[in-house]
């Protein structure tokens, strides 16, 4: 046998082989001296494996060796060191392990026969991680070892957080019945149950504990008290549910609840609704049995009626109503409690509270009446009137008309402050030096934060600087950019890794002596093209001075193929093609400046400035790059000084000729945006189409990219939102409006599907992209841009308003407020389109009322009313068979505004019919209120 003569070399061989069974075998019959001799090399080898062995972390041999080493530590290490070693590795048994490492450690320890096993168990129990039961699974091996040691030594089970968490475990490790049996067999485990409630994250196994409580093995009061304490502390819903199911299954008797009244009351302000619901239910049960101390009702109601959950508030009002019906003598007490609910926002809850209050008004004494009259100030005007009829007016209040009149003026809600939402009206100065350019690139949000987006002004400034310095100070620019290429974007990556063009990659190789072959990105995006521009500027200017733009450069066909395969959408194509042209141009035909750099933050270009640039080109004898000039033309405002055209024509250059022809032709050839209902053909049913408005004249090639005649096909095939990189893609959306700053509707049309998908949360590829920083910012930028607010913008904002994500809805409201502030929002027209959209797409109105309420808060009550009034006819029967989900919120807001400002104009079609209906559906009640507010007198 080796055992008798086990030397370190033999043990090391066993460890390397991962032979746990062999180690156990060999460790038998070792003398204390032999064990001592093995201790140092063993500890040293375990350490070496850990420190040096991480390189092997992908080999299974390494892992089995290190586990074997940890098992082997049991042969000779003293308890303190052994505990550390055992907790370092995981003693998890792999499916193909012949021997369970935990059993192996136990066997070795047993053979060693040391008196400190209890001490070891204690140390391991201290180490075991507490908290989430699911995380304790990672330490499952250590837990099993500890439990086995506890069983072997016969000590009391430890009460550390980690031990009890592991002990409760998870149902798939040990069923409830097995756990219950274990406790029946060993009553020393009952303290662990009590401890479980004190450890946040430990599982509460109702299925195991409840039968034991009925049998008398576990103390019911321990379970109930523990459960209540745990609920008061809170936690994730799944844990709360465990505790609540335990308490429900225990079915506390009235005596038990009565003893713990204060504990149940302490559940009422809980963060989560579940504990509060339990508390309310049990206290009500107590009260129904006549065992709730009367003085507590006010406290209970005050807490519950402040909560946000309608269900809880309604239940509390019902309870109060029942008390007053049962015992009219308590009417005054009930009335004072009900008054708290007057402060709830929802008209429905206010109405319910008032109904209860009026029902029992006759029981009120003078003081209570005064209190209720005071509290009624928080009610909506119509309800306030009813409250006044029942309880009188608050002391010191003036006559109702005089009280209400000032509220109807604009003084109460200050008029919309457009200023905070305005963009700066002037651009920052151009970038002055290559070093400043590098600082700009470093300081950019979008290049450095995964959740940020590119700022259009930043992008144009950086492009202008790259082009200018490439031509004026190429050496300085290259020097500055080298610091950038050294380390950027958090990675040590040569620029070539970020470009899609083989030419820059190859040249970088010659420049830096990059030893490995360049790797091309197989998918192009605006970001890869921006890197190409930077890469081009950073490489050797060996082709400087070319007069003409090159017909074709090396690697161009590869780029074209990748570009086609990337299937960019229209505006993406424009951006990418323009960036591509700049990257080629910088190397092969540098120009001292870009034509298209805007002169206003929204992207507009002053025609005089463009003419000056063209004049400079003519003076210096160069022609602008083609797409650059086209983009410049697209950025011209609609009204251009008529003298500009003739002045340009006199210059005689090609560029000047194009400008003159463009102006002669009336500017932009015009793209028409129409609402496109593709119902039955594809989803979403309603999108915007973009088609040429008139034929003839020179159409810039860039514009043809923006045609959107087949929205269905576009949605199906185009990679508007590549799944792998939606952050990067959305990051460029803010640059879209600046492509056509005077025709924002065209750009908006291209964004419609994105927000349509968000609204219905359908579609796999693009889910959630609308909730990115860039997507939300583009809404504001569209509102800041110029041009009609046509179907494209209406649809984008309409879908945005119904977005599933609250932040998207808020972004849409923000855009809406900007439009209102600029006097460009026609609430009625928008509302009509919005109503039709909701009805035809079957969208829910969840959160729309809340979002529009924010707009009203900001002072846009009038436009919001116009929107609601115009939208309602399409949303009410008979226009729709069933009103959309949460319509009541919208009508509620409408009624609130109507009560406030008493707008002129007819009652929206269909509303009166709905209001005349019987029933207590919320939207019917709100419709009644709205009709009343609109009726004169």
């Amino acid at each position, binding site marked *: 046998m080796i055992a008798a003569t086990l030397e370190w070399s033999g043990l090391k061989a066993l460890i390397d082989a991962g032979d746990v069974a062999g180690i156990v075998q060999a460790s038998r019959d070792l003398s204390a001296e032999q064990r001592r001799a093995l201790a140092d090399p063993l500890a040293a080898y375990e350490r070496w494996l850990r420190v040096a062995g991480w390189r092997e972390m992908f080999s299974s041999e390494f892992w089995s060796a290190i586990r074997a080493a940890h098992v082997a530590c049991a042969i000779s290490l003293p308890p303190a060191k052994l505990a550390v070693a055992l907790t370092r590795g995981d003693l998890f048994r792999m499916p193909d392990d012949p021997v369970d490492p935990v059993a192996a450690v136990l066997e070795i320890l047993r053979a060693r026969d040391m008196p400190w096993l209890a001490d070891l168990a204690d140390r391991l129990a201290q180490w075991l991680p507490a908290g989430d039961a699911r995380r304790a699974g990672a330490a499952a091996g250590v837990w099993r070892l500890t439990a086995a040691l506890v069983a072997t030594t016969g000590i009391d089970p430890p009460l550390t957080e980690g031990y009890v968490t592991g002990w409760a475990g998870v149902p798939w490790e040990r069923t409830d019945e097995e756990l219950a049996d274990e406790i029946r067999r060993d009553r020393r485990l009952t303290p662990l149950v009590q401890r479980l409630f004190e450890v946040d994250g430990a599982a509460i196994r109702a299925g195991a504990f409840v039968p034991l409580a009925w049998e008398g093995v576990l103390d019911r009061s321990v379970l109930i008290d523990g459960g209540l304490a745990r609920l008061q502390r809170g936690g994730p819903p799944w844990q709360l549910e465990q505790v609540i199911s335990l308490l429900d299954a225990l079915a506390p008797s009235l005596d038990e609840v009565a003893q713990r009244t204060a504990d149940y009351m302490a559940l009422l*302000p809980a963060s989560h609704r579940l504990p509060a619901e339990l508390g309310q239910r049990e206290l009500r049960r107590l009260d129904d049995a006549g065992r709730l101390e009367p003085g507590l009702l006010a406290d209970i109601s005050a807490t519950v009626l402040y909560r946000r959950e309608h269900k809880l508030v309604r239940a509390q009002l019902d309870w109060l109503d029942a008390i007053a019906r049962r015992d009219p003598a308590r009417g005054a007490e009930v009335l004072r409690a009900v008054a708290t609910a007057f402060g709830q926002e929802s008209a429905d809850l206010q109405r319910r509270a008032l109904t209860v209050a009026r029902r029992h008004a006759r029981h009120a004494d003078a003081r209570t009446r005064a209190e209720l009259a005071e509290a009624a100030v928080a009610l909506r005007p119509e309800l306030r009137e009813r409250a006044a009829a029942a309880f009188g007016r608050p002391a010191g209040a003036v006559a109702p008309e005089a009280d209400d009149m000032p509220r109807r003026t604009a003084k109460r809600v200050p008029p919309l402050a457009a200023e905070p939402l305005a963009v700066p009206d002037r651009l920052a100065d151009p970038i002055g030096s290559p070093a400043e350019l590098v600082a700009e690139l470093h300081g950019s949000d979008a290049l450095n934060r995964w959740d940020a987006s590119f700022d259009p002004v930043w992008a144009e400034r950086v492009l202008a600087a790259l082009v200018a310095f490439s031509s004026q100070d190429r050496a300085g620019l290259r020097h500055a950019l080298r610091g950038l290429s050294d380390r950027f974007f958090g990675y040590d990556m040569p620029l070539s890794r970020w470009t899609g063009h083989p030419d820059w990659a190859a040249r970088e190789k010659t420049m830096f002596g990059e030893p490995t072959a360049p790797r091309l990105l197989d998918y192009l995006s605006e970001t890869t093209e921006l890197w190409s521009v930077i890469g081009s500027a950073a490489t050797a200017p060996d082709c400087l001075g070319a007069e003409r733009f090159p017909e074709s450069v090396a690697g161009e066909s590869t780029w074209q193929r990748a570009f086609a395969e990337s299937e960019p959408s229209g505006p993406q194509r424009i951006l990418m093609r323009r960036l591509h042209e700049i990257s080629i141009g910088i190397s092969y035909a540098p120009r001292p400046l870009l034509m298209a750099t805007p002169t206003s933050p929204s992207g507009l270009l002053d025609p005089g400035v463009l003419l000056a640039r063209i004049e400079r080109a003519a003076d210096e004898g160069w022609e602008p790059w083609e797409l650059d000039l086209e983009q410049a033309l697209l950025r011209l405002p609609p009204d251009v000084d008529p003298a500009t055209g003739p002045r340009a024509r006199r210059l005689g250059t090609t560029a000047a000729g194009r400008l003159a022809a463009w102006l002669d032709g009336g500017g932009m050839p015009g793209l028409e945006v129409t609402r496109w209902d593709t119902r039955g053909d594809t989803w979403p049913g309603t999108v915007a189409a973009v088609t040429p408005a008139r034929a003839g004249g020179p159409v810039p090639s860039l514009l043809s990219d923006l045609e959107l005649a087949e929205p269905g096909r576009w949605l199906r095939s185009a990679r508007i939102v590549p799944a792998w990189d939606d952050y990067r893609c959305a990051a460029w959306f803010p640059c879209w409006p600046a492509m056509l700053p005077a025709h924002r509707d065209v750009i908006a049309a291209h964004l419609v599907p994105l927000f349509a998908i968000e609204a219905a949360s359908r579609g796999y590829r693009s889910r959630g992209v609308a909730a990115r920083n860039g997507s939300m910012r583009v809404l504001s930028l569209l509102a800041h841009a110029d041009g009609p607010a046509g179907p494209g913008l209406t649809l984008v904002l309409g879908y945005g308003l119904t977005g599933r994500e*609250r932040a998207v809805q*808020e972004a849409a409201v923000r855009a809406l407020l900007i439009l209102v502030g600029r006097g460009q929002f026609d609430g009625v027209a928008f509302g009509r389109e919005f109503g039709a959209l909701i009805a035809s797409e079957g969208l829910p109105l969840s959160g729309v009322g809340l979002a529009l309420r924010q707009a009203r808060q900001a002072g846009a009550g009038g436009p919001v009313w116009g929107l609601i009034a115009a939208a309602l006819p399409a949303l009410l029967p008979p226009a729709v068979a069933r009103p959309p989900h949460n319509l009541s919120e919208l009508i509620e807001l409408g009624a609130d505004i109507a009560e406030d400002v008493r707008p002129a104009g007819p009652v929206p079609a269909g509303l009166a019919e709905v209001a005349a209906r019987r029933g207590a559906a919320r939207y019917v009640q709100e419709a009644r209120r709205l009709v009343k507010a609109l009726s004169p007198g």
Partner: protein
Amino acid sequence: MANTGYSYAYACPSALDEPARRLGLQTSGGQALISPGPHPRFFTGFLAHPGAAAAGLLAVARVAQERYVLTGPAAAMFRDPVVTCNGDRLRFESFSGCGGVYARLDVLSGALDGEVHDRGTTNVDVNEPLRRALARVGGGDPLHLAVGPDELAVTTLDGREVEKKVPLPARWLRGFAEIQVIMARCDLRAELTATEAVRFLRSLPAGAAGSAGTRVARGRWRGAQWVVPAGRGVRIDVEPVPGAVCLAGAHRLGALAPLLRYVRGLRAYGPAVTAGSLPCASAWEVDLPGMRLTLGLSPEAHRGFSGEGAVLEALAAGADGDADLIGALLAFEPRVETDSLAERSGLAAARVREALVRLGTMGRVGYDLAEAAYFHRELPYDPGRAEQDNPRLRDARALVAAGAVTVDGDLVTVWVTDHARQVRFAPGGGASCTCDWWEKYRDSRGSCKHVLAARMARDEVGAPGPAGPSASAGAPESMRVPEPGARGGVR
């Protein structure tokens, strides 16, 4: 000093005697003005509005036990709240385990009726039975409150001493101290009436506070929101606008939810923002009957206050003789008056203010937003040492000591192992760098170590002039950036 330990020693556990309505808060350590000792005794008397006071204390205790993001190992060791007696008021402070949320309950003189025995700062024991008992306190008669051991209890000490050992991570300590400096830079941006305050707090995403664990606000959007005053209330914007207050991780206001019924008003404080601002810190102050509860939130849920670097420049400037002088003049005032301090110390008001900032980083003053003034309190810990050992500051000093900084007018080159960082000083006094930190946070989180080192070196060289000589003869050879041709492989 990554991690030091701290042990609390209480004469007996804090307890609430429910039938007698007597709340006894036990104390441990800290400082007291008149009779310092292991268990300072500050107050005995009655506490009005017991329901609100109990809920406020629970909120402070909850923040101390909360981790709003999961960081590091799950060791559930939480620090007890700190209580300060300023004579006319009691302040209970706590700081979340994640280091991103600060809570303070100011119990004002209107809610206190009793005897002040001493002024000072100490820890108070909060334990689970006390927490449960506080949760049971309803309205009704005033609660009898004792901060510090009862004289009766002291004489009959029966070996019920409580000892709690907790780790004090340096980042937690630094954050606790630094928040005072950050709060001093915040101004009132919005003030809401009780009705509007309740409406706003109710509208925040639900499912907020609870036990430790990661919280995800509803949905996918986890960016900062901006709360903008509008009409009588506020509205939420997705982008910063002037006058807005950043609300990052709205779930962190969840500790206020159980207090709704007591809320009498809400004030929001924050630094000035403009369009395009990065997320910033904010403070939310709730008026309760006779009390104020303030929550301070870090700029992002995963960011602790320790890394905000608000005081690095002041620390880098060195010399805190003024702070020592001013510190000696303080006597646990509820309001530190700069003018009177200036008069008594003979220092100019500006220097007094700087000294107060300095004292803040040492945990020796707190900032009360409602009063817009510092108050004197001495954290029972020693954050000053942690602050001195701030990693960025330490690294910057090491860089200067290694002579890795080359000054060339407004352009400073800092050599770090194998690469160089360029620090550019703008004419206005600001500075930019080419490191990752600057890329990510710009100047919203304090200077990076390169800028700090550059400032130190520039100050050493003398007045910053275009022709300033190099701080060192040049970087050591080993620190030189390799020539571009000799680029290393992918890291």
